[in-house]
């Protein structure tokens, strides 16, 4: 796991569910096939209503319709991020679009598990809501050793909750690498 993730921030509100992250008509794509996984990334966050896409102002598409790609590396969101279905296509689509870290008040359980066990992205939780204090498009830097988010545009620091039990899985890469390390697969 690298120490620093630096890039543009995209801000979303509460209860961003998996249908908003990757609408169901795109689930015909098989994420185990590299070119289909890449395609999933081009549909990431495509069902977020326009006024809630890219806060505080909204109407900022996550995927640039001209290029079909995203310029963002970090998502900052409110509570219950990733609620809804168990589709692993959700963290996969975000990762395929270039997201490395999500910072949210807290997560829905299955999305959180999928992010960690699949090793798709780092799901940080925050001690206090950050959505109203950060703007879409700002440059940020997440320090995964110090557990903090620095807004490069303003110089402000925000503390993130330590990753705790999931850290060894993220450090190993995914649940398979973790289980091999702890010999769970050979038991």
């Amino acid at each position, binding site marked *: 796991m690298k120490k620093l993730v630096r890039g543009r921030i995209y801000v979303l509100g509460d*209860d961003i*569910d998996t*249908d*908003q992250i990757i*609408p*169901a*008509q795109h*689930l*015909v*794509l*098989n*994420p*185990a*096939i590299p070119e289909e996984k890449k395609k999933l990334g081009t549909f990431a966050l495509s*069902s*977020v*209503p326009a006024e809630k896409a890219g806060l505080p102002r909204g109407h900022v598409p996550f995927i640039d319709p001209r290029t079909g790609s995203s310029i963002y590396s970090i998502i900052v969101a409110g*509570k*219950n991020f990733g*609620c*809804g*279905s*168990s*589709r*692993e*296509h959700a963290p996969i689509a975000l990762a395929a679009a270039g997201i490395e870290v999500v910072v949210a008040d*807290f997560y*829905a*359980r*299955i999305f959180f*598990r*999928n992010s960690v*066990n*699949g090793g798709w992205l780092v799901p940080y939780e925050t001690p206090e809501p950050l959505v109203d204090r950060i703007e879409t498009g700002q440059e940020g830097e997440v320090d995964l050793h110090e557990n903090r988010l620095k807004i490069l545009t303003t110089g402000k620091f925000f503390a993130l909750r330590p990753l705790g*039990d999931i850290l060894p899985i993220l450090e190993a890469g*995914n*649940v*398979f690498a973790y*289980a091999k390390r702890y010999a*769970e*697969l050979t038991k």
Partner: protein
Amino acid sequence: MAMTMTEKILARHAGKTDVSPGENIWANVDVLMTHDVCGPGTIGVFKENFGSQAKVWDRNKVVVIPDHYIFTADKMAHRNVDVLREFVREQDIPHFYDVGTDKYKGVCHIALPEEGHTRPGEVLLGTDSHTCTAGAFGEFATGIGNTDAGFVLGTGKLWFKVPETMRFVFEGEVPPYLMAKDLILRIIGDIGVDGATYRAMEFAGDGVYSLGIEERMTLCNMVIEAGGKNGVIAPDQITLEYVKKRTMIPFEVLKNDPGARFHSTRTYRCFELEPGVARPHSPDNYAPARELGEVMLDRAYIGSCTGGKTTDFKAAARVLNGNKVKVDTFIVPATTQVAASLKTETLEGKALEAIFQESGCHVGPPSCAACLGGPADTLGRLNKSEVCISTTNRNFPGRMGSKTAQVYLASPYTVAASALRGRITDPREFLGGRA
């Protein structure tokens, strides 16, 4: 140490005498279910990590149920069912309910119990968030992603954090104008879409035990809409009769120990509850149906794992019988068995299917269909800014298709009553009862 039902099941499956909430354990899995949407990715994860020649840990414990994108011209959707077919052949998996054969079932969460794959005391995992439905049989059942499912395919085990249990007690018999859907929508309205995050939700009280098994499945089905990890109901005679008719595999009934500790207990008196609706765009946006009479509708939908069981259609038929719907109304049975019951179950001498046809409903073939939108040609999909009332489980933006559509969630009684009026309607206007 006194444990809850969920703690006991997880302890047994981890080979431990006791476990506590918050503890991480490795649990052995009894059944792994997958379907056409998440199966191909799961198979990919399995092969990548265990090798292209690897065999699943136990071919009798893997259940494959294509159900999501079945009646569509989408070539990728068909390709995904082919991936399942190839894997089932190569692994010699006996429990496969293939499309276009006599074995085809439809919606996995209803197919699982019908085919005897749900048993008290077991651990059932599925690559679908509504796998929690099976908690109605007194087992630990929860949804997982492709990576976790690929891991289970190879090892037969998975790590879990033991959840705390929230207890929901319903006192008194459920009145004849209410359904399990009204109960669970009220709970979600009270605790919110994150109110049970990381926790088990147990349903108890004589109100719950006055319900049939399908209604209990509806309660457990929607715990995920409150963020719950699993829903659970201790088995009674009704549960055991249902299960024993459908499986020869022995099982052990596990219940709460006296003195088991709960996160919280909430008690409801059934007669105080009302027909309820979740307004757009969240399952916790609760209001009594009687307050929403000004909401004009374009469509009504009765189907899915939540609201497409025989009990749900009997209820809808009670309201629709002899009346004409005012909006496009879709009837989508969850499984082929439910579809067959529409021809055999009768009300005042008329088959349910005849009642639906006479009242002007479209009856479709069994699958998940428009509950989750799906490919553009899916029956009942909301392709524009329609306003729909539905017996399904989610109404976040875009859930049933277009992100500009508006979805109201309600019981089959309320959906049927609303279809007849063309606006949201309290079913007591048709069924009687204090409004």
